[in-house]
Every structure is written in C-alpha cells, then in structure tokens.
C-alpha cells in the first residue's frame, strides 16, 4: 500500500491483552501493539522478562485470545477464528518453543511429532514418514531420529527436530519464542545458522519473528528489531541503528547492561 509493492504477510493492529484476576489489579501484558511483518523479513523482538513478548506471540498463534485489536494474516482477520478455520491458520504460522524437550509429547517419538501436522492435513502415514525423513535431513539430523523419544536426544538435537516439525507444513511465518535461550552457546550458533540457511533457501516465502533477549543474536540475524517494554513497543528500527543510537531510555539501559 505504502510503496505499492510489499503487502505485509502479517499485520498486527492495536493488539491488547489484559489479565484480570479476582482481587488483583488488572495486568496489561500487551498494550496497543501494532506492527507488520514483511515477506522474507526477519523481525526481532527484544525486551526483558515480563515485557509482554511471549503474550504477544501466544496471541498471534491464537494460543490465548486477544482482548482487542486485530491480527491480519495475508489480509485475513484471524483474531476471532475458531475450530476448523483456526486450524487452517496453522498451515501458515508455526512456532518453535523455548524448551525443546517439553514441546514434544514424552510418550511419542520425534517422528510422530514432526509428521503430526502432515497427517492432520490428510497425508498418508507413509508419505508423512518419507517427508519426516527429508525434514530431519534438512535440519541436519539423521533419519533414525524419527524413532527416538524426546528424552533420548540432547537439547540442541531436540530443537532441530522442533524446527523440522515447524517447517513440515511449509509455513510462511515461523515464530521463534526464545528458541535458543535454553541452549548453550555453541548449539545456539548451530541453530542460528540453520535458521539462516532456511531463510536463504525459502527467500520471500518465509518470514521469521525472532523473540529474544540477546541483543547480539538479534543484531547478527534480524533485518529489523522491535523493543518492547511494559507491554508497549518503545522503539523500532534496523538493529545496528537501534544499538548504536538508542532513542528510548529503556533501550539505552538494555544496551548498557550488555556492553
């Protein structure tokens, strides 16, 4: 619209979530957040614990309901979808969780988890198995990992499998909610280079929202960064610019605390 060339793949308009508990003052976790995600873009979101990053992500994936505002996926309002219509959204949006081992059913194999979205979308068991092997290969895991259980693999391997699961249905948006925070530094680098490779392969059909509290990772990896503080977006821009000349006092504090 603005340029006439790039329609955002995801547009968030004035999204708000207020947690109300009896006997407590209501907590505004996300307060009128608006932004858009462009095709092929990698958007970083940084902020301290409790700044509303995870609430925002959970609203976008519709794991929790927004109180007000709109979520537009390729121009379609998904804020209030339910049932079957909502399930169709999940072939466009996928997510990688913070704790890799917890995100797989402890009683089922990794292969089951990776192929689940395929089987839910009408793939035959055999075809899903074949695709699972390809996905494992894409994420640098040997095919026999399909038969392993989550407790039998390391955190880094499990997170690779989680990425394979997220990619299975070929989504156009991948949300990484602190996807590398639970991993040690070398494994973190491997996961980041895997995500980088995926971006290069998929090009404009694949956008990433990268939620993180590590500014260095965001600077290295993201095209654009949003800084969240107390439920609001306080700053937005190219990572280098934001880090070199932060405009908001919170961003300054955040950067000072690291450098």
């Amino acid at each position: 619209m603005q340029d006439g060339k790039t329609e955002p793949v995801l547009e968030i308009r004035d999204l708000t979530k207020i947690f109300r508990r009896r006997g407590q003052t209501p907590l505004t976790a996300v307060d009128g957040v608006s932004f858009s995600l462009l095709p092929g873009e990698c958007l970083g979101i940084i902020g301290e614990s409790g700044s509303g990053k995870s609430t925002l992500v959970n609203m976008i994936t519709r794991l929790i309901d927004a109180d007000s505002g709109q979520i537009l996926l390729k121009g379609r309002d998904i804020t209030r979808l339910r049932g079957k219509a909502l399930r169709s959204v999940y072939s466009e949006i996928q997510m990688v969780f913070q704790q890799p081992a917890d995100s797989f059913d402890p009683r089922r194999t990794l292969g089951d988890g990776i192929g689940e979205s395929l089987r839910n979308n009408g793939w035959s068991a055999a075809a899903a198995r074949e695709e699972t092997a390809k996905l494992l290969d894409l994420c640098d895991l040997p095919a026999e990992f399909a038969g392993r259980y989550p407790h039998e693999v390391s955190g880094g391997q499990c997170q690779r499998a989680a990425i394979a699961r997220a990619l299975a249905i070929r989504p156009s948006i991948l949300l990484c909610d602190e996807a590398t925070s639970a991993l040690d530094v070398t494994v973190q680098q491997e996961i980041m280079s895997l995500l980088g490779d995926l971006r290069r392969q998929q090009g404009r059909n694949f956008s990433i929202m990268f939620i993180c509290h590590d500014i260095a990772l965001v600077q290295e990896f993201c095209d654009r960064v949003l800084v969240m503080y107390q439920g609001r977006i306080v700053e937005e821009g190219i990572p280098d610019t934001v880090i070199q000349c932060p405009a908001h006092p919170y961003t300054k504090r955040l950067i000072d605390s690291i450098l």
Partner: protein
Amino acid sequence: MKQNFLSDHDKKTGHTKTYTKNFKGIGARKGMKGARAGSVRARLVFFGVLAVLLLLGSVFSEALAPYDPNLQDLANAKAAPSAAHLLGTDRYGRDMLSRVIAGSRASIFSTLLLVAVITAVGTLVGVFCGWHGKRADTVLMRISDIFLAFPGLVFAMAVAGVLGGGLQNAIIALAAISWPKYARIARSQTLAQRETAYLKASKLAGSSTFRIIFVHLLPNIIGPILVTSMLDIGTMMMELAGLSFLGLGAKPPTAEWGSMMSDARSLMTTAPWVAFSPGAAIFLSVMVFNLLGDTIRDYADPRSRDL
C-alpha cells in the same frame, strides 16, 4: 528423676549414638534399594499371577465347580467338610465349594466392571472439567464434593434401597458414589498438563481438541489413575459384598460371597463352615488385588523401580 536420668543418658551417649545410627542408615538404605528393585518385580509377577488365576477361576467357574452350585440335597444339609464336600454344605445341602467357585463370577466380574465404569466416567468428567474450566468445572466439582462428603457405603445403601435390590443396582449405586475420586485425580492431572508446550505444539500442528485430549493428554495422565483403580478393586469388592450382605446386592439363589455370608449368619454356631468359606474367599481375593495394586503403585514409581 526419671527425666533427669534420661537427659543425662542422652548427653553421655547422644553423640556416638547418632553417628552410628547415620552410618548404619546409609549402608542399610543402599542394601534395601537393591533388594527392593528386585522384589518389586518379583512381587508384581507373584500377585499378577495370583490375580490372573482368580480371574481364570471366575471365567471357568462352571467347569471348575464339582457340583451344580444351586443343586439342593436336603438329606445332606449342613454337612461338615468331608471328602465328598470339601467345604461342607449349607442349609439346603448345596455344596459350598461349588458355590464359592460360582460366586467368584458375580463377585470378581462385577467388581472389575464396576471399577472399569467408575474409572472411565470419573476420568472423562475430570478431563472435561480440567480442560474446559469455567462454570461447568465449578458445577461438576461441587457435585463431586457433595458425593465425597457422604460416607460412601451409607449413601450406596440409600441408592440401592431406592433402586431396589439386585447385583446390577448395587453396581449402579457404588458407581454413583465412587466416580468423584477419579474425576478429582484426572482434573488435577489435566490442569497440570494443560499449559505444557507439547499440547500447544499439537494444537499448532492443526490437531482437533479431541485428538489433543485422547492422543496426547490421556496417555500422559493415565498412570496415576490406573494405579488408583487397581488399588480400588479390593475396596470395591468388599463394598459390593457388603451391599449383598445387607440384602441390597445379589438376590438368592445366585451364589455371591456377600449374600452367602449373610445367609450363613444364623448357622454360625451350628455350621460355621458355611460362613467361613465365602468369608475366606472375600478375604483372600481382596488381599490379592490390594497387594497387586500396591505393587503396581510401587512399580509405577520410577524411584522404587530404577534404583
């Protein structure tokens, strides 16, 4: 004076005493763990085999019984145990061994059916409450509180009394009062699992709520529920026999251990074997199922299995 002596004694020996105690404790515990790991498995096999034998006995009760359990032989009534009638005969001359064997079907099968029903119903209600939450949860849980607040057997007697006698009604009565325990366990387990990442991941994989609950949630919460139901088999067997004893269960001439004991009350002084054999049958089978449940609980607890 005595107190003085005691504290003096403690002062003198307290230090060395605790030391040796601790020292012993460590060694003993190590040895115990090793022995327990083996014995849990051995116990599981032992009681499992006994339970299976009881089950087989009740399935093939007709073939196993030496006489027709309902065949009356008034000339031979109240006969003491002998080679022909190993456990004697009752007031109508019916063979007690045959009746005890035949009674196992009513007692054991009804109990298993009852436990299966309350486990299934309670679990479904609990999972629904835990998953759905909101008002339905509040209402159903208050209802279960009401059932839990009543003394179980008294309430079952009231229900069975309203419905009338018969084994089927006794089962319904006991089922009506016993499901809340399972609903409570299933609900708390569901609440604990509801926010886990793997259920969210399954939702993101496009799974329906039905699939999430039955494929992912239930297999992960069913362990403690099954252990509870194993432990409940003994209790339910006793309560069912209790209702029958009170005349609210199996109707004569059906052979059922509880009603057989009730029938033998007036013969306690003249023919005590008539009361003894069904009593012993209840005692033994309740004990076998209780110990099996205990063993399964120990086995399901990885701390006692892996060490």
